[in-house]
């Protein structure tokens, strides 16, 4: 019983690890203030769920489609906002996340609205169905590992060095001949693609998705994971997801009503964030924090 619950928890933590690592690429490494990461998560989930439910598209194809559609929306969002100065991207992504949730809620004929989309099949690859929690945990762990290796690799290449340079001082990066808009677009698209993968993994695990799963508050949770773990550290994102999701778990054993536990959880997050920001402003493993940018 406890084991099953732990494995279930691990699946969810793994999905959040992918979300945190992918957001870190855009936010921690490139300095793009993306508040709507959750929308890319939702796009991945809905894309692969709808494909599976309506057309019987196999899981792995749906997963790739989810990643691609999320990346496409990342690009669409990037084109008008990344050329502008300042943090328009923050506003655009926030607005995008709110609109996404509203559309999923109101486009009833497609998404079944607030009632949610049930009956998403468990993934099957080469005839093997990942129906047990254990097998799904393994599947998620593999994706966490792949995400980790990929993002760590690209951030250590000269490509990643340019991302960090843009984060540090975009104007100077431009003056050194870097097409910074292009780099920011690629970074955001990859970040969105991995969020889409996380969404697809979530949808096919829970087998049911509803718009409320992808509310903006979820974005705040992911951003909190980055801040706790440290912006610009892939390992930090893994640690941040682990800490934030495990920390409130002991609360379950307290004899308290559900609503009180929910509130306590928020209080614990707030305290933890405050503590971290005071004691270690750049997070447990981080190298960078947001600050005011200079101009020419």
């Amino acid at each position, binding site marked *: 019983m406890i084991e099953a619950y732990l494995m279930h928890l691990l699946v969810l933590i793994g999905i959040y690890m992918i979300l945190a690592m992918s957001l870190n690429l855009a936010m921690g490494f490139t300095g793009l203030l993306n508040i709507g990461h959750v929308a890319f998560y939702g796009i991945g989930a809905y894309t692969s769920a709808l494909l599976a439910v309506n057309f019987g598209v196999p899981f792995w194809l749906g997963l790739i489609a989810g990643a691609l559609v999320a990346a496409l929306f990342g690009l669409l969002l990037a084109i008008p906002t990344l050329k502008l100065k300042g943090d328009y991207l923050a506003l655009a992504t926030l607005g995008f996340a709110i609109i996404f949730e509203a559309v999923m809620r109101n486009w009833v004929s497609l998404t079944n609205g607030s009632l949610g989309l049930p009956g998403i099949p468990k993934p099957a690859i080469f005839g093997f169905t990942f129906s047990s929690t254990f097998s799904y945990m393994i599947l998620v762990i593999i994706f966490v590992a792949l995400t980790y290796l990929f993002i760590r690799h690209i951030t250590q*290449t*000269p490509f990643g060095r340019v991302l*960090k*340079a843009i984060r540090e001082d975009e*104007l100077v990066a431009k003056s050194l001949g870097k097409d910074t808009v292009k780099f920011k677009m690629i970074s955001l698209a990859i970040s969105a693609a991995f969020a889409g993968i996380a969404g697809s993994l979530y949808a096919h695990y829970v087998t049911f998705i509803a718009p409320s799963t992808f509310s903006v508050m979820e974005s705040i949770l992911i951003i909190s994971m980055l801040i706790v773990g440290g912006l610009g550290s892939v390992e930090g994102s893994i640690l941040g997801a682990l800490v934030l999701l495990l920390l409130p778990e002991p609360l379950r054993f307290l004899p308290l009503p559900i609503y009180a536990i929910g509130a306590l959880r928020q209080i614990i997050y707030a305290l933890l964030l405050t503590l971290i920001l005071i004691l270690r402003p750049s997070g447990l493993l981080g190298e960078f924090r947001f600050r005011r940018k200079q101009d*020419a």
Partner: protein
Amino acid sequence: MLRIRHLEKRFAGIRAIQDCSFDVEDNSITALIGPNGAGKTTVFNLITGFIRQDKGKMRYNGSSIIGMKPHAITNLGITRTFQLIRLFPKLTVLENLLLAEHHSGENLINAIFRPQRVKREERKKRRRCMLLLKLVGIEDKADSLAENLSYGQQKLVEIARVLATKADLILLDEPVAGVNPKMRRHIKDVLKRLQKAGKTILLIEHDMNFVMDVCEKVIVLDHGKEIAVGTPKQVMKDKRVLEAYLGNGSDGLVGT
């Protein structure tokens, strides 16, 4: 090499640059001087595409650079430093230099699918950047974070970074401001060596001794217009130049 004609730029009513024209000759070291607020840095911002001019022509090696994006102008062979030092603070000194040049590993496809080639190129570039650090005398700081260096050392990193770009036209905004005399001589040597290597340098500087020492041509800017052009000796005797400086009550030629 660089030809500027009737350049004009307004900021919300004030005319920062008006009808400004000058040339920078191939392989020269030219100074752009003038009182505070004369528009010198603005000229750099215009040349490098950071801001758009309102009127006027700018040609580099015969072709217009009007309307080009900053990175595209850099890739033509023009590079700059900033009046206030601007390094990438959380990157190492060596990484700061490595960013100055195009690297095939900056292309994501290469970074993912051609790791061996990228590694080889990285090794080569690191060796070259280490040589540049040696040239300016801070090779022992290669792996320090840029933000941990002293002011003078950061200035040297900035110059080394400019060298790493392989640009032909180098724009320096006050390269020796706040630098001690020994370091100033050192920077002068570096600039002379660059000239020998075929580079063209346009620099903004308030230190007239330095300008007399290293520059063969001086352009004096006042209220966004060039008021005198000539050798350092010529412009120092120019009446309008003296008026511009004295009338402005700022630092400058007095006593030099």
